[in-house]
């Protein structure tokens, strides 16, 4: 089952230095604060549509975010706030998008599930399970064709490993030897069903890797340094022509699948176990142990909170989207006319 012992397929090249550690921690804290706020705003009925939080899964986004080159590309799912944040997209437009305002990242047209910022290499959040894996392959193809050295990194859930697009994307990426890193965030559940109940192998991604000629890699997705080192190795492999990687990062979401899902389908002890392994305090403790001064950590935390507060205020102050947006931007000419 998905709770089986983890193996680290790629040995960390070196321990992360103190700067990297702080960077990892900063992103984890920003994500944590942002997601908690998003939840509060949902309870206040300000986030109108759905939203899928990464609370508990921060280490995956942070580890990759710190490892990626600015011109690398991220492809994420509907659970994409964290992956958008770590690409350096300002928090205000992200928050404003959740609130459906004109100052939102997508001017309210996409919502929480479709966060995208092409300027930051955040190439989209996709709400159909599995759909973005082939798209990431295409971006990697374009990087290879243009010899740009860019890498496409594609995040998806454990549930996505059972859909056809997963299979097609992995196979094509390997056959064409493309610079793409597939990252399965295995949080042990699809929406409400345990992944082990609907999957033919214990490790939904790692145990499929050999079907594409790739080594099985499953890592502790709650350890940001392990994630970061694994990411560095996979990115380097991709950039140097070594082809795709498939990484299973085992982690856990603290809350429900989306919105107000109370997640009562999960055993209490399982939840308690994983809360005890909460990546944010755990990593904080590790940094303290490694000699990072307490006040530096507090500064990072204060800055994060301040940034999220400011984003919240600016988002709330945003006007509703311009009504003209309904019929805008279907086509490159800015409009949506279907008649000539």
């Amino acid at each position, binding site marked *: 089952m998905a709770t089986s012992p983890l193996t680290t397929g790629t040995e960390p090249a070196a321990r992360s230095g103190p700067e990297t550690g702080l960077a990892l921690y900063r992103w984890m804290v920003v994500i944590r604060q942002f997601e908690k706020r998003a939840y509060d705003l949902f309870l206040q009925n300000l986030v*109108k*549509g*759905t939203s899928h939080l990464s609370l508990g899964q921060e280490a995956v986004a942070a580890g990759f975010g710190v490892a990626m080159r600015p011109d690398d590309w991220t492809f994420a799912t509907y659970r994409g706030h964290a992956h958008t944040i770590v690409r350096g997209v300002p928090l205000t437009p992200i928050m404003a998008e959740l609130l*459906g*305002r004109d100052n*939102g990242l*997508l001017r*309210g*047209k*996409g*919502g*929480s*599930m*479709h966060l995208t910022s092409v300027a930051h290499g955040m190439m989209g959040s*996709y*709400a*159909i*399970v*599995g*759909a973005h894996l082939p798209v990431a392959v295409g971006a990697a193809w374009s990087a290879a064709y243009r010899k740009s050295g860019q890498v496409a990194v594609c995040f998806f859930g454990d*549930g*996505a490993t*059972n*859909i*056809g*697009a997963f299979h097609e994307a992995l196979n094509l990426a390997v056959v064409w030897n493309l610079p793409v890193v597939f990252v399965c965030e295995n949080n042990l559940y*699809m*929406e*409400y*069903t345990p992944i082990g*109940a*609907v*999957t033919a192998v214990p490790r939904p991604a790692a145990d499929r890797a050999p079907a594409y000629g790739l080594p099985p890699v499953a890592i502790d997705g709650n350890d940001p340094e392990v994630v970061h080192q694994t990411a560095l190795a996979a990115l380097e492999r991709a950039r140097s022509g070594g082809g795709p990687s498939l990484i299973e990062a085992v982690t856990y979401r603290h809350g429900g699948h989306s919105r107000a899902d109370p997640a009562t*389908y999960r055993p209490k002890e399982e939840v308690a176990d994983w809360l005890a392994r909460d990546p944010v305090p755990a990593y904080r403790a590790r940094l303290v142990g490694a000699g990072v001064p307490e006040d530096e950590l507090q500064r990072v935390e204060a800055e994060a909170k301040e940034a999220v507060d400011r984003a919240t205020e600016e988002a709330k102050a945003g006007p*509703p*989207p311009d*009504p003209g*947006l*309904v*019929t805008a931007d*279907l086509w490159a000419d800015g409009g*949506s006319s*279907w008649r000539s």
Partner: protein
Amino acid sequence: MAELTYREAVARAIAQEMERDPSVVLLGEDVAGAGGAFKATGGLLERFGPERVRDTPISEQAILGAAMGAAMTGLRPIAEVMFSDFFAVCWDMVANQIAKSRYMTAGQVQLPLVVRSGNGGGSRFGAQHSQSVENWAMAVPGLKVVAPSCPSDVIGLLAAAVRDPDPVLVFEHKSLYPTKGEVPDGELVGHLGQAALRRQGGDLTLVALAAMVPVALEAAERLAAEGVQATVIDLRSLVPLDVSTVLSSVSATGHLVTVEENPRLCGWGAELASIVAEECFYDLDGPIVRVTTPHVPLPAADSLEDLARPSVARVLEAVPRALG
């Protein structure tokens, strides 16, 4: 008589049919343990057990393929496609396999199966979770297509679909799940292919489906206040299509406005308008006007989504054009 929600009606219909016929089985993502993403299948696992109520992986092609293979070998499966947008990931199963097998085999293959799906907008879910795709299904020969607008029709049409020997797609409207309605006690079985006359009026025919029915009815009330009496037809079934109910109403009123939630091009409204323009041309006293979502995906923000979907105001705007 009891008041039920639309979502409770789904579970009641399925239970009614599973109780009656042991070959009826239910499968889909999160339909068993969790009682469905929209909580429309709650209690069925407990009542009918894990052999008949089955959770699946996120594998829509396998879900529909499994339903098809089971149907052709003696079961009567009800498959759930959680959001109708996901028909796109298993469209081959629906359009090329399920729809065509009986015809291609000169009637050898029987496919008594039902696919239920949450359809339509209004939930601020954005473009990939809000589509009205009943016209995708209507365009494919071999599929029956229904879309109930109220709890009693949910039961009647779903039961009829389960008993029908052909594949039926049932489009449940997501924004209607919490709505309530009176439902008669006891077994309820409807008919596929019967429109419902929701209101009578001699000046104009309004035709609507699913969540657009209340919109059309409210528009009709407002029109009445201005002295225009509208008939409101709830189409309920797209295939078979109750053409005669529509034609006889339009023959009487001379004016037709359709109210559909799908994007502009090639919806059921276009089909209906064309039928009327061919078969009832000489009774028409004015242009046929379609009220639709513009030809765009649905935006996520509440204010934008409300502007995009047909509203009472947009229907009222259309009526003078139809009256000519």
